[in-house]
């Protein structure tokens, strides 16, 4: 069973193909946020490199966010459309789960942090458990300061990864020595991890039809926020 993975939730565009033997080929580019221009040619390239015909793909897995809305939608629209044309199901996976997966062997609290712009970050807390990761909180959006306060209150060693952790390292790191910020190598979700994590799910038929796949925005459109404020006032 071959899985095609697509990830456009951050500044990076990524795709990978793989199966039971792990990823067969992948493409990642973090340059210039040209998601719509890059993604479909990248999928074509990855298929050719892996010598896999698209018709051999059994499931399309996609990062559903949270992340930057416009890029996120490019990946989700592409995944839905591919699944529709190939007549295969889809698997949605969170960008934060993917980021946490990269450092899953750490004994510390694992905190993926994605830049949400406007001074906010998307984050969640995880802990290593036998066989994988356990998510301890909801997926959430808030200021870096709010996340820093939450971590401070826990007084526990934590490893923060993601572009949000790097951008707000000055706010998130403290003098206590409890907080470590991961390097640039772990700042984006990986499409290879996506394929690896989606494959067993696909075998267990834990997928949905393309029409049921929804992005995880975590934030309402501005107009709706303003509307809600006005209604309250």
């Amino acid at each position, binding site marked *: 069973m071959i899985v095609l993975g697509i990830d456009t939730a951050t500044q990076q565009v990524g795709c990978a193909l793989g199966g039971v033997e792990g990823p067969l080929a992948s493409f990642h580019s973090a340059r210039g946020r040209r998601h719509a221009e890059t993604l479909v040619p990248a999928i074509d390239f990855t298929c050719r490199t892996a010598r896999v015909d698209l018709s051999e793909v059994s499931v399309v897995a996609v990062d559903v966010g949270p992340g930057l809305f416009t890029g996120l939608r490019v990946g989700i*629209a*592409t995944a839905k*459309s591919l699944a529709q*044309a190939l007549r295969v199901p889809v698997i949605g996976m969170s960008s934060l789960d993917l980021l946490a997966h990269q450092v899953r062997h750490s004994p510390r609290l694992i905190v993926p942090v994605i830049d949400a712009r406007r001074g906010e970050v998307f984050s969640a807390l995880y802990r290593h458990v036998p066989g994988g990761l356990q998510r301890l909180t909801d997926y959430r959006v808030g200021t870096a300061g709010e996340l820093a306060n939450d971590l401070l209150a826990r007084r526990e060693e934590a490893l923060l990864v993601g572009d949000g952790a790097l951008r707000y390292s000055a706010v998130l790191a403290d003098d206590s020595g409890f907080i470590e910020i991961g390097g640039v190598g772990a700042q984006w979700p990986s499409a290879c991890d996506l394929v690896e994590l989606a494959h067993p799910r696909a075998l267990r038929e834990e997928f949905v039809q393309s029409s049921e796949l929804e992005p995880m925005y975590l934030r309402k459109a501005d*107009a709706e926020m303003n509307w809600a404020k006005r209604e309250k006032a």
Partner: protein
Amino acid sequence: MSAEPARLLGIETSCDETAAAVVTESGEVLSSVVSSQIDLHARFGGVVPEIASRAHVELLTPVVAEALLQAGMAGPEVAGVAVTVGPGLIGSLLVGVSHAKALALVWGVPFIGVNHLEGHLYAALLEEPDLELPAVVLLVSGGHTLLILMEGHGRYRLLGQTIDDAAGEAFDKVARFLGLGYPGGPAIDSAAMEGDASAIPFPRGLKDQGYDFSFSGLKTSVINYVTKNPEVETVDVAASFQEAVVDVLVTKSRRAARETGARAICLAGGVAANSLLRERTLDACIADGLSAYLPSRSMCTDNAAMIAAAGWWRLRSDGATPLDAGADPNLRLTLI
């Protein structure tokens, strides 16, 4: 080989309509599905880009499936996938572009990027394949007000355009001010039916100068007039406002046809659904011995059949668009 005529799938997501259609090479519309988001945006009094983009993601897969189903197709047999690449809302455009590219990749057929404005010009050709050229096209919508001389396929001369608000924008703003609701075009059209169009002599900006348009002064006069005369009948204001807009649009189109030697006047865009504009254009064409092309209302507003029709022309003239092309929110019409 099948004896079926070649067919293009068209996709349109540039603003607040999620649309897909199947059109044959000879211009027969086999299906045209439009899912309007008007209800989602109505409470905000205008299109909210982020809400539009979210709705496109949700609606496009079922809309494309429905268009293929109605055309009696499974998909892989299309000859290409045409999609609007601009102008429009960038987030919305990217949903359609991403969707179209993926379909083209799986089916191994050309991906064809289409200019939304050229799509509107092809709406008339779909219903009137024998359109007499050159024709003056008045393209009026919520985002655009263009007066174009169409000399042939892909041969356009820009005669004039709005220097401030688009005609449809003026309708929306005045309708909102008068409390007639959203979208403003149909609201003013129906209110005007009950009113006296000669009640208030609103100004006709730039009516006798060149081919450019200006509607912001008119909008301001409506607001000033109603503020000074609060007892005025709303239907009279709507009728007088509509009269002023249509007077300017028709006078300029007619003069353009005369001065360029065009043989026809053609309406395009959402405002072309306005009943007074259609009536006056027809009257003018009869008086001047010109052909009048008034696309059906569903062909005036945004749809994907017009995108597929323009896509056929672009495929024949330019071939496929590379899969690494993007969308351009400010895309202009290529002029001669």
